[in-house]
């Protein structure tokens, strides 16, 4: 049952050292404010699951919080590579987390299977791909009707799912609109779910019947954090901060500039700074 909590309290209660966590949001609604709170609270030994690690995991990786990474595309979208992730993989700085790498199709299916309560996902994939050789969690099953060999990967069942969404109502039901990504799946796949939202409204009475709504009884905490997806965007609220993605390439290029930026903008800041950051990006 969802409770409406401050982000600090929600992270404090729901995310624990050693957890397997998935902060999801496919290019859209990336839960950056929740990640920053998790960094401030110094969680460690995390297994970080995310299709596209993006800036959000580049920061957590650079801060040494990751014990293991599970991902399918590790780029800085529209810019290039992720420099902190490269540094950890190529040079072991600040540590050398275990890597479990998949394709998007595999991870999307694995989230789907997690939401569906299955132990594994079955799909047609990885044909001729070398990831099979370096990832022991890519196996196969044989269709008992056609004899076709299909790929199988373990379902993703995180300890905690963290997403950002447009709005919640007072009961804690959550609405996700636009590019919905795997937002529904990760929440349903997880043991615990934390959702930051742009706003909390009275009720959802005027919604179209077929929208992506997560009922309050699938969520543990709802935290209002306006701007909480910055520098990604929230459809209907504010645009993507493309400049911030470019700037990240510069900030993250160097360990010292990275650490200095994290100190000034994350460790010594709070969730309230996100509202300011999207100020000029808000929809007209």
């Amino acid at each position: 049952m969802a409770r409406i909590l401050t982000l600090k309290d929600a992270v404090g209660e729901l995310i624990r050292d050693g957890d397997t966590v998935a902060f999801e949001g496919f290019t859209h609604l990336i839960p950056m404010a929740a990640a920053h709170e998790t960094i401030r609270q110094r969680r460690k030994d995390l297994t970080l699951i995310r299709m596209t690690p993006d800036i959000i995991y580049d920061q957590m990786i650079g801060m040494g919080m990751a014990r293991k990474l599970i991902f399918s595309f590790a780029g800085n979208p529209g810019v290039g590579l992720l420099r902190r992730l490269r540094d950890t993989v190529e040079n072991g700085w600040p540590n050398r987390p275990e890597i479990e790498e998949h394709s998007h199709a595999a991870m999307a299916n694995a989230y789907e299977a997690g939401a569906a309560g299955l132990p594994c996902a079955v799909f047609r994939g990885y044909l001729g791909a070398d990831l099979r050789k370096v990832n022991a969690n890519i196996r196969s099953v044989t269709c008992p009707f056609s004899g076709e060999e299909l790929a199988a990967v373990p379902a993703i069942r995180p300890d905690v799912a963290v997403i950002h969404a447009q709005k919640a109502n007072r009961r804690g039901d959550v609405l996700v609109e636009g590019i919905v990504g795997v937002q529904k799946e990760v929440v349903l796949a997880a043991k615990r779910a934390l959702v930051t939202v742009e706003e909390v409204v009275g009720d959802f009475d005027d919604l179209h019947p077929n929208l992506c709504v997560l009922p309050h009884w699938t969520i543990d905490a709802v935290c209002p954090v306006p701007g909480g997806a910055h520098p990604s965007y929230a459809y209907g609220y504010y645009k993507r901060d493309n400049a911030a993605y470019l700037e990240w390439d510069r900030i993250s290029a160097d360990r010292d500039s990275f650490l200095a930026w994290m100190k000034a903008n994350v460790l010594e800041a709070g969730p309230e700074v996100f509202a300011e950051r999207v100020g000029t990006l808000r929809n007209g």
Partner: protein
Amino acid sequence: MDFTPDEMMTIAAARALKNDDVCFVGIGAPSAACNVARLTHAPDITLIYESGTLGTAPEVLPLSIGDGELCETALTTVSVPEMFRYWLQGGRISIGFLGAAQLDRFGNINTTVIGDYDKPKVRLPGGGGAPEIASSCREIFITMKQSVRGLVRQIDFFTSFGHGAGGEARRRLGLTTGGPTLLVTDLAVWRPDPESKEFTVRSLHPGVSRDMVRDSCGWPVRFADAVEETPTPTPLELETLRDLHARTRAAHNGQRREAK
């Protein structure tokens, strides 16, 4: 009208797309080519981005594969699991459009690592949607600038499977789709040989010599029996592409162009 090799590459790629194509615009792929096709000879082409946006018609090129405009102009936006299950794996896509960090002459692609997987020289972004785009779309188009570091004899990692070692390799793996059927570089248009499946130069862009192609390619280049000259970009094609880039720059405040 004068034009750059980049412009020629994008326009030659755009021309290969048809009005009734359903095109999956994957990681690193030139959505410029897809959108030029849509804005010129293929107004009804269906463009799909892996973020779940079906039938998009962006005014400007997206910076990520999940920009807001893709959703705003789409016929509908579905979840990412649905995108990969129903639309890609379901066999609904005619053309998958991929880029590459490393490419071999059989259309096998590496975007994972340079060097050894466990101790890479450069850790690249990885496959994203590409492994299953390469196996599920009816055909794969590849576009990239030529360089000896990019067009290599042997890729370091099979991120996505093209024609393997050539010939019937796809069929032997159980693949029923066509695999790479087109490579458009900044210098030439290549098609796989019907038997060996090795990329073969079919046309050279205006002003490009065979040696220029050879010098920027890491494998011994094969030329078709009759190599043609790629038709020069028309004024409409060039204006469409340039207007698209100008609108994109204005919208993104002069930031770097679409890459993902």
